[in-house]
């Protein structure tokens, strides 16, 4: 053994070393463009944004740019619009996610039965997902508008409204507008993921349970739910974070109004950056949102760990 390795020409040794190096580098060469893009266009601005949170950066003021420490955060603590936005974010996120999930689950169960025309029905049910989000926002805003939309007239005919008016201009009901649009738009996401999970459940389990005399509810409870649980958990977690960040519908439909009643944290950040051009303050709010979302994700991961260790 020793003699062969000693007899090997040094040139061959170097070549194998180079080849080894090339083999080791190969995956990095393939991933390099993606990594460079993410670092340059996402991580660098992210770091910049975090630094802005501690600086006075206003686009229209060329003399701004100074370090201001925690000033933005002190302002935030006394900003009642921000506190309102926090509450609205919870309201917006959880009602959207719960409704999307419930209807998505029902739709997935419906589409999991074989029937004639299922492929077509499935395509049509999933269509809202393909509608650009700004357009679903505008479309629903028009549907709620008594001048061109039918919904106020229906609500009036049903006796729910005393006159056909726009729910988006009433501070008490305005939040339901974007939530309805969001539910309509987001049901397909849950339906598609849950349908995929449903179709992965082995069919013979159901047959065996039926032979053992288990009714449909019992079968749903002891076969379907346990199989779906991991998919449900992960899709709800990810969707919650995603919807908390999702400001398009609100910007399009109400712009945060009336009287800030539909302003969520993400749309508040956008308003500060885009309308007031106060990049420093916007970045401070964004940093708070980031920390809250991180805390939420860590809480969920910790919950999962304790639940796993208990089983």
């Amino acid at each position, binding site marked *: 053994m020793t003699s062969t390795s000693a007899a090997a020409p040094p040139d061959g040794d170097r070549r194998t070393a180079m080849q080894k190096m090339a083999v080791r580098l190969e995956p990095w060469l393939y991933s390099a463009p993606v990594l460079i893009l993410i670092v340059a266009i996402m991580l660098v601005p992210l770091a910049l944004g975090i630094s802005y949170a501690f600086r006075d950066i206003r686009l229209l003021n060329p003399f701004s740019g100074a370090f201001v420490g925690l000033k933005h955060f002190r302002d935030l603590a006394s900003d009642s619009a921000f506190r309102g936005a926090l509450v609205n974010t919870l309201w917006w996120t959880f009602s959207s996610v719960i409704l999307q999930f419930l209807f998505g689950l029902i739709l997935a169960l419906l589409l999991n039965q074989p029937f004639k025309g299922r492929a077509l029905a499935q395509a049509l049910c999933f269509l809202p997902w393909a509608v650009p989000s700004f357009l679903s926002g505008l479309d629903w805003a028009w549907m709620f508008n008594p001048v061109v939309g*039918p919904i106020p007239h229906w609500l009036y005919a049903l006796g729910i409204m005393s006159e056909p008016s726009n729910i988006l201009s009433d501070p008490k009901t305005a939040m339901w507008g974007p939530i309805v649009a969001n539910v309509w738009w987001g049901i397909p996401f849950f339906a598609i993921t849950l349908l995929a999970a449903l179709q992965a459940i082995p069919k013979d389990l159901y047959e065996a349970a039926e032979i053992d005399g288990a009714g449909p509810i019992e079968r749903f409870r002891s076969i379907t739910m346990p199989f779906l649980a991991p998919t449900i958990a992960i899709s709800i977690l990810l*969707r919650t*974070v995603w919807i908390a960040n999702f400001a398009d519908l609100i910007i399009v439909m109400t712009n945060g109004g009336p009287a800030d009643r539909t302003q969520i944290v993400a749309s508040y950040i956008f308003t500060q950056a885009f309308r007031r051009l106060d990049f420093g303050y916007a970045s401070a709010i964004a940093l708070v949102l980031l920390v809250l979302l991180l805390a939420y994700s860590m809480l969920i991961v910790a919950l999962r760990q304790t639940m796993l260790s208990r089983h």
Partner: protein
Amino acid sequence: MTRKRAVLTVLHRLAVLAYVAFALFPLFWLLKVSVTPTSLLYTEGIRLWPSQASLEHYKFVLTHSSFPTFFLNSTIVSASTAVIVTLVASLAGYAMSRFVFRGKYWIVSLLLLTQMFPLVMLIAPMFKMLSPLGLTNSLTGLVIVYVAFNVPFATFLMQSFFDGIPKDLEDAAMIDGATRFTAFRQIILPLTLPGIAATLGFVFTAAWSELLFALMLISGNQATTFPVGLLSFVSKFSVDFGQMMAAGVLALIPACLFFLLIQRYLVQGLTAGAVKG
């Protein structure tokens, strides 16, 4: 028993029908108002179909507004984004699928992280970074931003397509003396064509829909994309609903076309993109 089954079947069909109606009604309404002549819009209120349909709003939008320009801008931005993302993501997706290497865990975590934090955070710093480079008010600037935003999701998507192709294929080619890159290009990529088409479709649709960064980065008419154009149209001429909805229907066309193309890959795309949405 059979009676009960029949009742259940009817209920099931009704429920499916009800949901299809719920899913389609807002789109139907968009179409309905877009073909209603302005003179009938207010008098016929909530009729399901106007007594007389016309294409006048489409004619106006196509000949007397800047929407054709906006449409062209959006198409250029979305198509370039889709092509660049798919190219870059297929390389990285291939690496994620085929190599076991140190650092892979970190790359995957980095890609996941980019899907979790609020993108709205980047609006202000992005503007500050692009503006001295002359990339605000430019379609190139938008393409750069959209490419970065879509690349993580597309990488996961391409990885899932590569995972479905047996490794033996390129192993055989490499034993015959081909380099890995040649094997990737000439054997694996052609087999992933449907996956590539799906990725193109997903990214195109995502870029076509993006609103907030386009609002922030574009302020001149020259580089306005369709969402921004439609939104400013709404706030400026909020009276002409027929024209707005005709423009809305136009914005729907490319998205729906791509949806039909990628319909078959939806499940795969969403499981890969569960991280993205």
